[in-house]
């Protein structure tokens, strides 16, 4: 088992926690009595983890799993101070006795947010960082950086600025950096909350390799599906206590419904994936029956689609039947599904092109972006709130100018043709696709924050300028903190509204109605920054409703959410749609997409591929140019 690290006794347990309790110290400045004390984050936790084991800590938000990981990497009690009781040893380091620096050599840590967990601006520096702190000699550091980069498949990234990497690449760097000092234990705190499907699979493969090296791995995670094949044990937390400790086999044997009742996300994402794929395959067909019938009559026989048969369930597919997966999805949603796309009406249904499920290996030039039958000047579909015709989104490469604008993170060009789409009031449309597929650029174009490179966005049939779109649409950003400006929730809703006294009364009435509708009435006088993530999200949406926005776009609204909060977001989407808003949700979360989206645009599956042109000034845009320290060392 311990091939690479056979110097220590393998029999010794990696982690031994005995009756551990922890309570974060309250806000400084508050009186130190019991009334203001937060409830304990951990109480009476007893857990042993064997050397080389892969343990998943699960449970709802605030259940104590993150606190437990902080105990393992020494952040408690050195950084997060509080009252610690009981004893916890990590490879012989006594919690509360050992300094956090002693943990650095034994425990590698990976955190939730890929954006803020690297300390250096460049990949090679970030990898070298732990070794530099440990005082290694330069030559030895360079050797180790090279070795780890090779093993983790990131050698081609060494010269790059971490800011320019995708979320998946950033998380890979984070894992690599955590492994630099050959840790015995790797602790990951919700490492996938910002990752797409492919990046999650990559991370799983990477952790599989690390596990085979004999490293003990502890993951605190909401999304359980990605590590289902790796985990040896699942430890379930609830209100700071351990309420379940199952081996992987026993955990998998628990009926899905019972795991759901524990507030856990699905262990098997396949049913959700199937529904997402089925919905995406039907794009741009709408759910209503009339559209179905028309499409079925008009469409020419679909060409054979071998690529799809692998993912789309049919009568011949073994394993769970479509009815099963519909059940699972409907259970999450709380209501039956409106129709089962897994069992399409007999006969070929309208799919404009065979989907390009793997655009990386396909070398053909981009297919025409129009669905069959639609001309470039096709009129907007009646009833559509927003339509795009021949739209190409992206941004041009920064030119050679005397005063270069530095507002875009990368100055290379990017363009992505978008198949014509129509957004209808009362409908939830999901936008999926891997990082870099152009999802963000598309929604930025639809809400008027970016100009289209070509083509038109029509609002109720008329070509609309970005300014008009900006008035009609609203984007709830992934980090909603940027969007809250006022000093109270009510002020947030009234911000920017002006008018005479009688109008103000009307606006106040609207504001109160919106507050009620989004369950914010009790919070109306709170400062927005004092709210929880979900409450902030609702406040931002409320501000959009008061302004009378017609299109609400949400960017990754469920990243890092447990099942209960994800369901809340899903219901919120539904409520917005029922209110007559067009709802567009950009997401990697297949559970959310499967249960609540009426239609799904999968940018990986529709024709048209992102094209990139390296910026002509790419070498200059980097304020500090990366240079390979390794090459540099060789050159002398």
């Amino acid at each position: 088992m311990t091939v690479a690290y056979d110097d220590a006794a393998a029999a010794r347990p990696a982690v031994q926690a005995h009756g551990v309790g922890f309570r974060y110290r309250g806000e400084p400045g508050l009186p130190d009595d019991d009334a203001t004390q937060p409830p304990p984050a951990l109480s009476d936790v007893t857990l042993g983890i064997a050397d080389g084991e892969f343990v998943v800590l699960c449970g709802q938000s605030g259940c104590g799993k993150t606190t437990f990981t902080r105990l393992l990497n020494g952040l408690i009690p050195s950084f997060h101070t509080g009252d610690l009781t009981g004893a916890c040893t990590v490879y012989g380091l006594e919690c509360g006795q050992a300094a956090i620096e002693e943990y650095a050599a034994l425990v590698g840590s990976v955190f939730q947010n890929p954006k803020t967990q690297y300390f250096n601006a460049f990949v090679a520096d970030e990898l070298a960082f732990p070794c530099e702190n440990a005082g290694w000699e330069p030559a030895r550091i360079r050797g180790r950086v090279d070795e780890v980069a090779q093993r983790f498949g990131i050698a081609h990234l060494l010269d790059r600025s971490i800011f320019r990497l995708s979320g998946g690449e950033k998380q890979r760097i984070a894992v690599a950096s955590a492994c630099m000092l050959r840790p015995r234990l790797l602790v990951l705190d919700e490492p996938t909350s910002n990752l797409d499907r492919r990046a999650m699979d990559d991370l799983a493969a990477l952790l599989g390799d690390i596990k085979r090296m004999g490293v003990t791995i502890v993951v605190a995670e909401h999304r359980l599906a990605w590590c289902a094949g790796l985990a040896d044990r699942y430890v379930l937390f609830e209100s700071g206590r351990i309420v379940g400790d199952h081996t992987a086999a026993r955990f998998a044997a628990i009926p899905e419904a019972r795991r759901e009742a524990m507030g856990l996300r699905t262990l098997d994402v396949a049913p959700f994936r199937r529904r997402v794929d089925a919905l995406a395959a039907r794009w741009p067909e709408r759910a209503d029956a009339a559209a179905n019938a028309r499409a079925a009559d008009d469409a020419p026989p679909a060409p054979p689609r071998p690529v799809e048969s692998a993912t789309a369930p049919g009568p011949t597919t073994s394993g769970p039947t479509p009815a099963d997966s519909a059940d699972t999805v409907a259970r999450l949603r709380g209501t039956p599904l409106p129709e089962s796309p897994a069992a399409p009406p007999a006969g070929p249904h309208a799919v404009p092109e065979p989907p390009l499920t793997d655009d990386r290996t396909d070398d053909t030039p981009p297919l025409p972006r129009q669905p069959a039958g639609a001309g470039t000047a096709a009129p907007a579909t009646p009833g559509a709130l927003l339509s795009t015709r021949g739209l190409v989104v992206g941004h041009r490469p920064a030119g050679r100018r005397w005063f270069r604008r530095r507002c875009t993170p990368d100055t290379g060009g990017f363009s992505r043709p978008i198949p014509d789409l129509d957004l209808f009031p009362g409908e939830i449309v999901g936008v999926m696709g891997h990082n870099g597929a152009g999802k963000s650029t598309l929604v930025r174009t639809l809400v008027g924050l970016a100009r289209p490179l070509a083509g038109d966005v029509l609002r109720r049939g008329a070509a609309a300028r970005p300014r008009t779109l900006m008035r009609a649409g609203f984007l709830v950003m992934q980090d909603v903190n940027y969007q809250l400006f006022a000093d109270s929730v009510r002020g947030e809703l009234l911000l920017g509204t002006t008018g005479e006294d009688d109008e103000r009364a009307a606006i106040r009435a609207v504001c109160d109605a919106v507050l009620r509708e989004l369950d914010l009435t009790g919070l109306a006088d709170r400062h927005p920054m004092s709210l929880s993530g979900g409450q902030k999200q609702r406040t931002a949406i409320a501000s959009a409703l008061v302004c009378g926005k017609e299109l609400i776009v949400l960017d990754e609204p469920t990243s890092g959410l447990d099942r209960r909060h994800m369901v809340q977001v899903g219901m919120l989407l539904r409520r917005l749609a029922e209110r007559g808003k067009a709802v567009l949700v950009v997401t990697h979360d297949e559970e959310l997409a499967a249960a609540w989206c009426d239609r799904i645009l999968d940018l990986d599956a529709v024709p048209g591929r992102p094209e990139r042109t390296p910026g002509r000034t790419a070498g200059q845009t980097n304020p500090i140019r990366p240079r390979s320290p390794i090459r540099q060392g060789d050159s002398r």
Partner: protein
Amino acid sequence: MSTVTTPAPPADAARGSHGLRLDPRAKLFLLLEANLLLFFHVGTPTEAVLTALFIVPLLLAGRVRSAVRFAVVYAALLGLSLIETPTSGGWAWLAIVPMLAVGIRMLLPCLITGAYAFTTTSPGEFTAALRRIHAPEAVVIPCIVVIRFFPTLREDYRHIRDAMALRGIPSGGGSPLRHPAQSLEYIIVPLLMNANTVAQDLSVAALTKGLGNPGRHTSMADIRMTPLDWAYMALCAVPFALFLTGVWR
């Protein structure tokens, strides 16, 4: 917002390795000297000679465009500042032109050496240089953090501008001038709020990687002062020394 990635410019590393490459410490020396020029108010000939000497390494480091740009701007300002303007009469106000030209011209050496030092040095080399000159960790770490923070701030600023536009709050380029108080509130406050959380996350990331280690910290970048570095530093020191000793003014 998900990140859009571009293929790395592959030529970068190769381009940096040929031509004249000064040690980061020599770069810091040039930067210091440029600041001393301003401090001692050196004469125009000395300043012009030194500016030319400062532009040369930029040129040799492959940053031809910015070197030429600096040279042109400096020459233009030099020309403008040498104009004799009437001291009385209706055109006396023209004296403001050479005055401004001199003011900006005197700042240019600092800008040139600063641009050279910071665009041709990787953060790793920079920290190595600081550690080599025995700067305390209390100086080194804030420097790393500043380098790390600038792109974050830029990105945050973009997000906030977008959010303001969506809410119909004026956010155009001129708005900080027209509505200073509002801009302060709507831009600076969220920036600081976010910086606070980023700072917390960074501290956690750094501490778990042993930043707090009491022992000696090393640097991966292997930097070395070569005879060339010493020679160039000496060359740049000569005109300044001549000016200070009064031999050549």
